């Protein structure tokens, strides 16, 4: 969708944020970044109206007063802003590097284009200092970046007293591949391959957000059939990963029979991806202008697959939900309260399990949403068990949605021709409910119609900190379950 655009001074921006982000407001922060280092570019979302707006504010002397002290949700955005652009957020309570590690030179700001002020020196070192917890008997337990299982890398620094975790600091950025910069360097017609590759387990949602953003800049609308197919693809991806995430929770608890069955049944969902797009991960299916064509017979097979999967999954989830050991390990562990989730701007499954009713499909136009959006699955309690119940609930609503979409899909074209060039100095935003939560792609073009800034906000970026807070005063043995209950992306977070 096309965002509203306002340019304003730093003082006015601070005032506007105070009004628009207070507790009773319905607006929320989408993302905070810069275009070339000379200004802040903030995306504000209004779910109730289904609109969004870009606030651009030039900064002087490469520094501004940090917003994190007033709005906790900004904290990683302001650190990433420094890593990518060198802009200093004065007064940030935990000002450290986020994405670029010791391998990079000290004053390397990859996305910055305007020159740094004379004599500017980075106020912090590349070597990362972890928060130290002092006290007799307190020890530090480092885990990662390479983990025991086949999973993406990240570093967890626990400060423990006996078996109890006193503090957890999460350090990511190991998978930073410079995707946002690549997206401004490749020709925009081929950019969807790079946009998908940010996190290929979320390939479909990333491709969809990318296509929506580019189409809103080019002012192109895709045919109805393409919109239906896009939503079907998004739901198939959600289905496949939710099944394996619940299965992963069973593995961590020790219910291997259930997790092996979940792994096998996930294959049925991946088969639907194969039928729709030729790829288990729905890769190269959605691109700006539409989708690849799908025969009716395949849609029929997908619908039959949904009906079979519903029958197959019922006994499996039932065994999980009535297993006493599982219930005891999940109840009241890793609790994220409603107020904490609100303060940090949590999205997705983690937020809905804490009682926050926020599902992008209900609010922002994308594919066949909000028309075909399923009722959101919201639980109270914010513990691991609540998150798993949300996932299981979403598996059922997703199966319903896929069948409903297939029942109503029209015939017709699936692609429109994209213009040769994009409009100059234009903004476009794609907001999608990926299986993890709210995913945003924001694009800005320059005087020649080329992409000058491509910002991606993965849902994991909002949620990672919740894990370090939810794990306090729990046992080390609870950590794998808390981590798996969120099932966040490392690669999507790092870009």
């Amino acid at each position, binding site marked *: 969708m096309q965002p509203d655009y306002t340019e304003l001074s730093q003082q006015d921006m601070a005032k506007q944020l105070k009004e628009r982000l207070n507790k009773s407001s319905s607006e929320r922060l989408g993302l905070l970044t810069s275009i070339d280092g000379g200004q802040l570019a903030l995306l504000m979302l209004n779910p109730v109206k289904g609109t969004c707006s870009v606030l651009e504010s030039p900064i002087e002397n490469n520094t501004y007063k940090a917003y994190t002290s007033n709005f906790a949700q900004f904290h990683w955005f302001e650190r990433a802003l420094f890593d990518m652009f060198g802009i200093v957020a004065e007064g940030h309570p935990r000002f450290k590097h986020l994405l*670029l*590690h010791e*391998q*990079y030179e000290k004053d390397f700001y*990859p996305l910055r284009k305007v020159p740094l002020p004379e004599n500017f020196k980075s106020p912090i070192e590349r070597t990362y200092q972890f928060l130290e917890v002092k006290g007799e008997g307190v020890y530090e337990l480092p885990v990662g*970046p*390479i983990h*025991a299982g*086949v*999973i*993406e*890398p990240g570093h967890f620094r626990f400060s423990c007293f006996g078996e109890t975790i006193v503090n957890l600091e999460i350090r990511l950025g*190991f*998978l*930073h*591949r*410079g*995707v946002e*910069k*690549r997206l401004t*360097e*490749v020709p925009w017609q*081929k950019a969807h*391959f*790079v946009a998908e*590759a*940010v*996190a*290929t*387990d979320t*390939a479909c949602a990333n491709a969809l957000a990318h296509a929506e953003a580019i189409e809103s800049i080019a002012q192109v609308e895709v045919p109805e059939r393409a919109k239906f197919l896009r939503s079907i693809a998004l739901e198939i991806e959600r289905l496949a990963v939710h099944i*394996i995430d619940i299965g992963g929770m069973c593995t961590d608890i020790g*219910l291997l*029979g*259930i997790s*092996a*069955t979940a*792994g*096998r049944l*996930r*294959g049925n969902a*991946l088969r639907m991806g*194969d*039928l729709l797009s*030729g*790829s*288990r*991960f729905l*890769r*190269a299916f959605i691109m700006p202008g539409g989708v690849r064509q799908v025969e009716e017979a*395949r849609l029929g097979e997908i619908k039959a697959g949904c009906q079979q999967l519903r029958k197959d999954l019922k*006994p499996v989830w039932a*065994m999980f939900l009535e*297993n*006493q050991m599982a219930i005891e390990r999940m109840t009241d562990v890793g609790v994220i309260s409603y107020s904490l989730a609100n303060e940090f701007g949590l999205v997705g499954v983690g937020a809905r399990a804490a009682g926050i009713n926020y599902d992008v499909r209900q609010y922002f136009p994308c594919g066949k949403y909000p028309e075909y959006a399923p009722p959101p699955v919201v639980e109270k309690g914010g513990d691991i068990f609540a998150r798993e119940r949300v996932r299981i609930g979403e598996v059922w609503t997703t199966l319903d949605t896929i069948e409903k979409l297939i029942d109503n899909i029209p015939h017709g074209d699936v692609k429109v021709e994209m213009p040769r060039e994009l409009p100059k100095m234009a903004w476009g935003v794609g907001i999608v409910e990926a299986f993890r939560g709210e995913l945003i792609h924001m694009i800005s073009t320059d005087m020649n119609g080329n992409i000058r800034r491509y910002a991606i906000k993965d849902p994991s970026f909002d949620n990672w900190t919740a894990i370090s807070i939810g794990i306090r005063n729990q046992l080390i043995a609870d950590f794998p379950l808390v981590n798996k209950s969120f099932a966040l*992306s*490392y*690669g*999507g977070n*790092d870009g």
Partner: protein
Amino acid sequence: MTMLKLFTYLAGQGIATQRKLFPDLAEGVRGMPMLTDAACESGCNACAEVCPTEAINLFKYDEKGGITLDLGSCINCGYCVDVCPTKTIVNNPTTRVAVKSRSALILTNGPKDKTETQEAIAKIKLPTPKFGARELTKPFKYFNRAVAARVVSTGCSACDMEIGASGNPVFDLERFGVTVVASPRFADALVVTGPVPKGMQPAVTSCYQAMSSPRVVVALGTCAISGGVHKNGYADACGIDQILPVDVYVPGCPPHPWMIIHAFNVAMGKEPPARE
């Protein structure tokens, strides 16, 4: 009681494991592309134009159109197959794609004895590893019965999920003697997924150093071989090939579980590579 319920449920499910080894992919499912004998249309460059990773290069020999297709850079998007007017590039449904040398990933339809073909192949830059040379150069049978694999993920997690899928009851990687281990000290094979950006380079190198000989390195997925769509970025994410000596390459984005199992069997010496 719940255990009994679980046992009864599982017993009632029957055997899920696919018996036929390395079956072809189903119709409509994208595998890697391959070249046929069909001649190119004169002056056509449709495939090279659409390729997102510059895996396709064109040359001429005897007035005919020649193609070099580097599977190590191919993310099997299928666009080249879609646009080719002469069926020179088609889909290859095979799940046997793993090879043991980087040059075996370069396909060409030009006759091997022509200088134009050899020059075109030589134009494709292949990296040399910074750290050491391949240790096991003679044919070996150390891992013929069992291999312990340490998987280091440096990528987007699609390849990792497919490795996880290889271990599920349908494909059952473990029946071939493969175990996935947590400690590099226990590992025989270092399996790398993802393009290995700067942030992960020290970690992967230490992991390799912690493994004792004999050891093999498997580059799993196109990102691990050449960086895929991430190469040429400032994060130096060009694959494991430029850091460690690689013994087995399996292209794909991501490779199918059967392709992964085939790669392990090639590493164990139980199956021949797809091409020399």
